């Protein structure tokens, strides 16, 4: 009896610890390390502000080899005010870069989609540079069940 109640207590403690970890991770929304460096390099001295960009990706990815992803930016795309560049960076693939898109007023609508690879559960950042030079961002956490390029790890 005593041992089973101890097991139960241990299980409860472990559960609480995992919950705390998840909560802490959620609070840790700011990019760090190499990802932050890649973002800073793209921004080129401009302040990176959250907002205007939406990175749409499934929060739970079954297969990391093919992950549909979409980036939308809030912009009218006129000659004087448009999105000039969109970039997507990741945290834990072998390289930080995922893709860069060059747009202009002729693009009509700042809405691009592609399919990417994710090596593991990680953070993704989408950045948009406007024609006035300002840089906007969106950060998303994704959980990957089956990782891409398992053999290479």
């Amino acid at each position, binding site marked *: 009896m005593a041992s089973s109640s101890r097991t139960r207590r241990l299980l409860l403690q472990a559960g609480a610890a995992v919950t705390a970890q998840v909560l802490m991770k959620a609070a840790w929304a700011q990019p760090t390390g190499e990802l932050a460096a890649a973002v800073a390099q793209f921004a080129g001295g401009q302040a990176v502000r959250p907002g205007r960009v939406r990175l749409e990706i499934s929060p739970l990815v079954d297969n990391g*080899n*093919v*992950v549909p992803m979409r980036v939308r930016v809030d912009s009218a795309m006129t000659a004087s005010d448009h999105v000039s560049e969109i970039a997507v960076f*990741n945290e834990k*693939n*072998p*390289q930080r*870069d*995922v*893709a*860069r*898109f*060059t*747009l*202009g007023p*002729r*693009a*009509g*609508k700042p*809405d*691009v*989609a*592609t*399919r*990417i*690879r*994710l090596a593991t559960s990680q953070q993704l950042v989408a950045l948009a540079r406007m024609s006035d030079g300002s840089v906007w961002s969106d950060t998303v956490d994704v959980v990957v069940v089956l990782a891409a*390029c398992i*053999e*290479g790890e």
Partner: protein
Amino acid sequence: MARTLIQLPATARRGEVIEVSALIAHPMETGYRPGADGRVLPRDIVRRFACRYNGELVFAAELHPAIAANPYLAFHTVATDSGTLEFEWTGDQGFRQVERRPLQVT
């Protein structure tokens, strides 16, 4: 010649924003994966994609190994005049392919 799949409307009204999607058959070998003999396979990816509308660049993309095999790209453009959309993929090991599609603007 790699197989491509390009979708865009056949006709559009002037000023209408149309969606264009382009896919090309390509392995997008990352350069991090070992092959059957245990040695790392050299990188072989599509580096750049560009879409020109009557010669004017409307959308371009720079791709990295994190893009899935058979790269798919969807984007938008404004239908201005009847003409041709030219899609160009360039990549490692001298890969280059150009496809053209007509667009009728009314």
